């Protein structure tokens, strides 16, 4: 893969983004210390409340004297408040070099279709991940989020290899001879790239609500000669022709939307698939697969990180949701020891 834009950063931005990333690693260590503190206070699967809100109160009270917890939260808050700011600053410091590249028209086989009068779901306007301004919060948010935040920071702090995880998710599709593949919530195309590598003969489509992310995805595709067909449409109602695809898939999309939208997305995937076609959706680890302390750590972090739908997604029975819209041979499972990403896949009956 060829990078669409040179991400050489000047000293300040380079040093600060590296600092933010490494600080995140220390935060990860403190999180493990917090876990130890919770256990040391006698809280475990037997003593923790089943209700997540009651458990939250229980753990918060138990940790009132934990220095590790106070400092973990303080660092987390700093990270949330400074992640996007540092990326914006790094962009501004390098604007003279980056902007001409990002303004240069792209030539290549990729297309971006932006239909008029589409209805973007209300929830999408939230500021996901505490990202300042939301997905379209900066003229060059595709580059800023896709490269500076996701590749530079998340890529070095998130457990495992975030790009390898995408390749592994794509490999969960039961066939390799798909003709038309749709990536729902494709963003800047990190997963779309994995799909292109996995299914080199297939026509690759992408759908997303963010114009800024899609604009950058077009650039990524054209730089590499990939004929992605990108559309600014919501996953729940794409407007695409029924039965057009033989694989509809997504990566870590579902926890960004309310449970009703997950069901609507599955319904739309079912409509878009030809008989015999496959749906492969991947998302965060299910709470039922995690121990109660891990659930608390995740659930409370999700609240702070402005992930308003994480809980309802992580507790939704995805297998049942897929079966309810008509999929058969539905399987629901996690990959690797971390059970991440979580996969739900099914087939539209012939």
């Amino acid at each position, binding site marked *: 893969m060829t990078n669409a834009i040179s991400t*050489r950063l*000047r*000293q*300040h931005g380079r*040093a600060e983004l*590296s*600092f933010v990333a*490494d*600080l995140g*690693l*220390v935060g990860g*260590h*403190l999180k*493990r*210390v917090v*876990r*130890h503190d919770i256990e040391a206070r006698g809280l475990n699967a037997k003593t923790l409340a089943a209700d*997540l*809100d*009651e458990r*939250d*109160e229980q753990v*918060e*009270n138990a940790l009132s004297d934990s*220095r*590790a*917890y*106070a*400092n973990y*939260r*303080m*660092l987390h*808050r700093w990270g*949330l408040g400074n992640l996007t700011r540092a990326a914006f600053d790094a962009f501004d410091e390098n604007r003279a070099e980056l902007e001409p590249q990002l303004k240069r028209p792209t030539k290549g086989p990729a297309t971006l279709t932006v239909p008029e009068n589409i209805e973007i779901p209300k929830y999408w306007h939230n500021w996901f991940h*505490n990202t300042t301004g939301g997905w379209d919060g900066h003229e060059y948010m595709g580059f800023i989020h896709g490269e500076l935040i996701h590749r530079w920071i998340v890529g070095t702090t998130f457990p495992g290899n975030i790009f390898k995880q995408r390749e592994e998710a794509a490999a969960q599709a039961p066939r390799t001879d798909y003709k038309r593949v749709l990536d729902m919530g494709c963003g800047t195309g990190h997963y779309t790239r994995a799909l292109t590598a996995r299914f080199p003969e297939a026509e690759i489509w992408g759908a997303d609500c963010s114009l800024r992310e899609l604009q950058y995805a077009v650039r990524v595709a054209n730089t590499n000669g990939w004929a992605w067909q990108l559309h600014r449409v919501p996953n729940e109602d794409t407007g695409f022709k029924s039965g057009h695809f033989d694989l509809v898939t997504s990566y870590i999309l579902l926890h960004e939307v*309310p449970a009703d939208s997950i069901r609507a997305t599955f319904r739309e995937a079912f409509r878009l698939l030809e008989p015999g076609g496959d749906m492969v959706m991947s998302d965060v680890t299910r709470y039922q697969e995690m121990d109660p302390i891990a659930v608390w750590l995740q*659930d409370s972090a*999700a*609240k*702070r990180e*402005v*992930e*308003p*739908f*994480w*809980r*309802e997604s992580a507790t939704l029975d995805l297998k049942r949701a897929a079966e309810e819209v008509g999929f058969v041979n539905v399987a629901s499972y996690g990959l690797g020891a971390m059970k991440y990403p979580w996969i739900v896949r099914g087939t539209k009956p012939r």
Partner: protein
Amino acid sequence: MAKKKARAAAKTTKPKGRTSSLRATTRAAKPARRAVMRETSDREFLTRQRIEDLGQGFVTLAGELWVVKDRLAVMENLLDKHGIPAHEIDTHEPDEAFKEQLAKARKAYIQRVIASLFPRGMPKAG
């Protein structure tokens, strides 16, 4: 001591119908999305007893920062004297070996700063 008790009592006085500010936050979290804005904006984690820890951390950080500022000034001065424009620092791309050296130093630096927030240094996980 009396003042402390009074403050504590004032803190635990809650409006009718709310058992605690935390409960108010968490009980509203069904669904969780409603709790988000409160959760991220209201809570105070560096409470009074943590201020001393924070002060220690700040002083350590300030000391580290001055060491860097001093070194940078010396370096830029030397560079200029030897005919290398100091502004090239901005655009210099570290090679792999130097990147590794920077990463090692940065991680150690962060460890040292964060460890200073704990009286006995960075705690172990377990």
